[in-house]
Each structure stands twice: as C-alpha cells, then as structure tokens.
C-alpha cells in the first residue's frame, strides 16, 4: 500500500515522500490488520476519485494505491474523510509513517 499526501496548511514540497507499507515486511499482526482494513473498506470497489469538497481550506489530498496479487487500484480523496472504513485505513497508514 502506498499513501501519497499533498497540500495542507503545512504544504511543503519536500514532505511529499509517500508512505509505503508492504504486508510482506510488516509484523504479521499488523499485516493482518492492514488486510482487514482494506477488505472492510471495499477498497477495490471504491471510485478512483472521491468528490472534491465544496467548502473548506488547507485540507490535504490523499492518494492510496494498493497492489494485491493481480489487483491494482488507486483512490484519491480529501479531508475530512467521511467514509469511516477509508478513514481507518488512512489512520493506519499515518500511524506507520516513518522519516528517512
């Protein structure tokens, strides 16, 4: 899974490095949690582009891309994330963010 973040009040071009999580290298329990979150979100059935917000500012735009066996899908959405399952998946990724 890869999460690309863009924009926000603290939009800094140097911080656009994506979060990359690989179920083969994550601890087994976390890899399992990630798979469950992907399934719960029906990720591969979500439209590629969620509606853009009509109001608001400084929101971040996320692009989550997942490769799973023969499946590949990307979903782009912005804050606030109203889909609870997609929100849980994003929060999981943010919790696993690391710096170089």
């Amino acid at each position, binding site marked *: 899974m890869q999460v690309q973040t863009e924009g926000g*009040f603290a*939009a*800094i071009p140097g*911080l656009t490095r994506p979060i990359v999580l690989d179920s083969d290298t994550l601890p087994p329990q976390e890899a399992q949690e990630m798979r469950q979150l992907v399934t719960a979100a029906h990720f591969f059935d979500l439209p590629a582009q969620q509606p853009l917000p009509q*109001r608001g*500012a*400084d929101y971040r735009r996320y692009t989550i891309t997942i490769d799973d066996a023969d499946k590949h899908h990307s979903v782009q959405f912005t*804050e606030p994330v109203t889909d609870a399952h997609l929100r849980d998946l994003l*929060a999981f990724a*943010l919790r696993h963010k690391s710096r170089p």
Partner: protein
Amino acid sequence: MSTYTPNNALRSILPPHILRAIALNSQDVAQRNRAIHIMSLDQTHRSLRLIRSQHSLRLPNEQTLVTARVQVQRTIYDARDSMELPGIVVRTEGSNPAGDSVVNEAYDGLGWTHALYLQVYRRNSIDNQGLPLQATVHFGPGYDNAFWDGTEMVFGDGDNDLFNRFTLAIDVIGHELTHGVTQYEANLLFSGQSGALNESMSDVFGSMVKQYALKQGVDQADWLIGAGLFTAKVRGRALRDMANPGQAYDDPLLGKDPQPDHMDRYDPTLQDNGGVHINSGIPNRAFHLTATTLGGYSWERAGHIWYETLCDPRLRPTAQFSDFAKLTLENAEKLYRYDSREWTAVRDAWERVGVPVPVPAMGGR
C-alpha cells in the same frame, strides 16, 4: 503533554506590558502559554465592555443585533488522535480552563481572533451573525496539519519529529478561522491565484491576530506564519515569512522555502491546488510592505484596507492577484482618499511585488 493552571494572582499583579514580554520572550512554554491565557481573559473583558458600551452594533449589512448575540461562543472538541470529527466536547464558553494546555491554546486563540474581528472591524464572528466557533484538537495520529472543513477548525498535534502541535502558534488559529470569514465573504476559490489570495488573507489576518494579542507594532512583529511549529531538528524559523517570502526555512529534509516574493518568480505548479501555499508569498509581501510603510499597528490602516477588500462585493470567487490589487487601491481611496499616504503605500506595494495597478489620471471612478 504539558498542562497548566491559570494563575489569577499573576493576572491581577502583572501589567499588560510584562505579560506581553513573557508571552514573547519566555523560553518556558508553560509560562508563555499562561501569559497568553491571562491576556486572553483580559481581552474577553474588553470585548464585553465594548459590547456593553454599544448596546447594539451597526454592522456592515446594516443589521442591528441585540447585545446578547454579540458574544463569542467557543466549543473545543478532542478527537483523541482519531480522524473522526468533531470528537468529544472538552471545553465550552465560559468554563474553567481544561487540564490540557492544547485545549486551552485553541480556546484562547479563537478568543483573540474573535476579538480582533469584533473590536477592530466590528465583525460578529465568522459569518458576521454570531456563528459559534468550533475547533477540534488532537486530530489524527501524529497529524502534521490544521484545516478548516467548512464548519470548524481542526488541529493536529504534529509528529513530534519535525512538527510540534499546531495550536502552539496563535497565528495558525487566526489563519484557520479567517478561512471561515473568507468563505462567508468573497468565497475565494481554493485553487490557483484565487486560492493563493484565500491563503494570503488567512496569513494576513492570522499574523494580525498575533500582533493584536501581543500589541506589537509593525516593526516589532516577526511576520512569520507558524513560528515554533518546527521542532529543533528542522533548520527553519517558521512555515512562511511574510516579510521575506522564500526564506522561512532551508532544511536538508524539507528543502528550501519555495515561496516567491515577486510575480517574476510565480510558480505555475499544479501541486497543492496550483501552489496556493506557495504563491501566497506575493500578496503576503504586498500587505507587509503596505503595513510597514504606514507604520504603527498593522490592523489599523493596512488591515482596514484589506478587510474592506475581502468584504467588497466586487471581489469575485475567481479573482486574480491583479483584481485584488485593484480593489485594495480603490478601498484605500474610499477609506482615506486618492493620493493619500495610505493610497500611495498600497499602490507602491503592489508595484514592488510585480502586480502594478493601472491608475487613472484623476481619482474617483
């Protein structure tokens, strides 16, 4: 997480200039927050005195409000590191300070922002109709952002690696609340030049909230947006520098501050909604130049001209820099006069950032 207890004895003993000095200079974060909190309480009393003295306010839309409605109504929520909004209520208007300094920072920051709009511009909250102010703190896990979602302000705690909590800087709170004001006025489209103007309005008023809270003149102000947000690990003073766009940070990981200070260096990027947080450096500098040329307090003459322009019905959601510049000059003429010191300062500021405004031979249109 640090906590603090308000010190009423300190409040009654220390004169405002000492409190301001502590708020500005103290290396102790808890002490600095305490000073800002005490000044905030004094500011609330000042708002109440202003309201009592007027009984009713004549607002720009000619609506007369009863006294009871012109009072700030703040509610602070705690998302408890989740990304679900708004979270649970942790502080309401008039309640005692929470044990959590982040909650109190948000509460006080909203209070100062409301105070600037009410006391200086006679504006009754975000919508000028007394809209209650809502903010959520502790949003998301290690969340490096703050945003306005169309109805409330949201603040993350930062990752504590590169970023501290976003409530730490009062100008960030003023910035986010001003996005609400802009939404109810010009409703500048958050993309391209109109988006950069939207961002600039928030930086301008966010900086003025900080200057107003600290009673700083234009020469004392730091003109930084987000000072203190970076941890010591980052080589940078703030996220943005209104006086010197492009010089806020230069760090091996973050790179160099990309803000341009002149139209010659306008960035046509498609990222960040067309560089809304990048190209805002140009109108930010125009405001700084205007304010510093005029001297005194920024929220007085320069701030009035910018506020009038934000509320000017001729400012369209898709306005470009040149449209905005033209309207600031026309509002400078309306508020002061053609060829006045204020009018000249506005004209020269836009000229210096590469957005010249064609000027008729005679004033008046």
